[in-house]
């Protein structure tokens, strides 16, 4: 009797195992697909969309772990997190190192045409008649002009009134190191305080607050973002990008005597390499999943205008734009996802 039971168990075990092996899939094997819970809006939105696609269309158990980008990149390298949905390739030392060691790889393009730079609100240059704001620096066009004492006093730092304030990225973001190097490279280190707001929320709050009050403010920012879609901002011109200059800017130990613009960016899905081997069906989807930039901006603006979170914006996007995401997934998955939304 005992042996019989055992035999049956082994037998059914084999039976149960067989179909699994036949269509071995990462999620089918009961693995959880963990996304990096990226803090900024576009990353948050894209993560929610991709999470829904895999959860509903491919029956994956999904999870999101929040953290700052460096911690999450590290987690992708250790396979604690499988997908980092908006990785700005080449920007982070941790990522570059993990990529050169073969622990992580970039798949597809999350979106094309992302940009970043130093900005001022457009009313600083052109004024805003509707709000009664006069242009305070009508000639301001490029970063060279920031040295001008009149411009410095315009962006005066209340904590150190003799200097201007440059609002950098929060420390721990890759752009923080680069903007710090640029400040030195453009020779602005003595006339501007390098102000790190501590968190992304604080950066956004500072910009919104200044914008609503019509005050001049000089800051680093990037697109696609809700702030960029909501406010009229003017990017300051910088000398053209060159590889040598960029190598200097991204080396924290180097001395920075000149600086240049940010390079155009490749934004891709960052995934763990072992995971990529184990889950070709997921990689296949990621490779095709390129969000049109105007669609990302529209979804972010939708979030702000309707005061909803990224999950809601993702739901609306999936409901209304099946023609966009439908091309990324298999026909069966598309039907399943559509069915789950109604």
């Amino acid at each position, binding site marked *: 009797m005992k042996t019989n039971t055992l035999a049956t168990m082994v037998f059914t075990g084999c039976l149960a195992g067989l179909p699994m092996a036949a269509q071995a899939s990462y999620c089918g094997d009961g693995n959880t697909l963990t996304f990096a819970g990226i803090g900024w809006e576009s990353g948050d939105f894209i993560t929610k969309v991709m999470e829904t696609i895999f959860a509903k269309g491919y029956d994956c158990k999904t999870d999101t772990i929040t953290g700052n980008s460096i911690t999450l990149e590290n987690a992708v390298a250790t396979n604690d997190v499988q997908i980092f949905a908006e990785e700005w390739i080449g920007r982070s030392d941790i990522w570059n190192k993990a990529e050169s060691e073969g622990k992580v790889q970039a798949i597809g393009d999350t979106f094309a045409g992302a940009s970043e730079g130093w900005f001022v609100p457009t009313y600083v240059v052109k004024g805003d008649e509707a709000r009664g704001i006069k242009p305070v620096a009508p000639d301001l066009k490029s970063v060279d002009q920031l040295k001008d004492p009149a411009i410095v006093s315009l962006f005066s730092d209340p*904590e150190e009134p003799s200097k201007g304030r440059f609002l950098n990225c929060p420390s721990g973001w890759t752009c923080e190191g680069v903007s710090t190097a640029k400040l030195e490279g453009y020779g602005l280190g003595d006339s501007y305080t390098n102000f790190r707001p*501590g968190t992304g929320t604080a950066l956004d709050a500072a910009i919104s607050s200044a914008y609503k009050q019509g005050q001049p403010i000089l800051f680093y920012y990037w697109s696609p973002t809700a702030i960029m879609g909501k406010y009229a901002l003017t990017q300051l011109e910088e000398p053209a990008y060159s590889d040598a200059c960029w190598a200097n800017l991204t080396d924290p130990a180097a001395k920075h005597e000149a600086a240049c613009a940010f390079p155009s960016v490749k934004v891709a899905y960052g995934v763990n390499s072992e995971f990529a081997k184990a889950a070709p069906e997921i990689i296949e989807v990621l490779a095709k999943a390129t969000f049109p930039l105007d669609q990302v901006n529209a979804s972010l603006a939708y979030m702000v205008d309707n005061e909803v979170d990224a999950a809601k914006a993702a739901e609306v996007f999936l409901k209304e734009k099946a023609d966009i995401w439908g091309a990324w997934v298999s026909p069966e998955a598309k039907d399943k996802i559509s069915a789950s939304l109604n």
Partner: protein
Amino acid sequence: MFPESLNFSIRKPINHFVDMLVTNYGSTFRAISDAILQVLLLIEGVLRGTPWWVVIIAFMVLAWLGTRRVVLTIGVGIMLLVVGMLGLWDQTMQTLALMTMATLISVVIGIPLGILAAKFRSVQRIILPVLDVMQTMPSFVYLIPALMLFGLGKVPAVLATIIYAVPPLIRLTDLGIRQVDHEVVEASTAFGGSPMRILFGTELPLAMPTIMAGLNQTIMMALSMVVVASMIGARGLGETVLNGIQTLDVGKGLEAGIGIVILAIVLDRITQGFGKPRRFK
């Protein structure tokens, strides 16, 4: 599931209210902010401008006056020296300035409120639940609107620190005065003391050890806020810790963390020393 028909949200009205405040009254709040900032910059200017050894000697003198213990006095000197040797002197002085400012305002607000709460039961009934809210509300909830109104940096950090750190001072001032022996107060009344005289001549001196314990707690809680304060751009030891952890530079974070601990120990021992009733004078 909770029935959706019963849902209500204060989200949008609150958002619009904050928006309205920022847009229409921004300049008023900026003026308040500038006033606080001027005092803070003054304190910071003094602390950062004074040579390091003068600051260390000043702290040692304070420790001696407070405790009259040689070992502790020397210990305070050595610990501050370590902070300097770790390369954290400037950050420590910035943090100290922030703490001093927050503590000063806390004393100005906290002690009178504590006295009122001790004297009037109705005041106490209102204040205690408010203090509970102040101590449990996650600080980021009020940090971000404070930042939008008062600007990025030190001022919202000071305000947030006060909100978090003033409750123990109010509670312990209240408690200290209530604990003063009734017979002593009755005796003072019998000798014809006016209520003001009884308060300043009898009750406050007798409550002083408890009030000092409250001040000590306020300082400790203010120190525990420095990392949170750095999240809205307040510079000092907190920023170094934040930078350390956000860049996975554990060593840097720990160094600055040690700096905060040292500052805490030094301030704790000194205020405790002043709080203890002195036997030999």
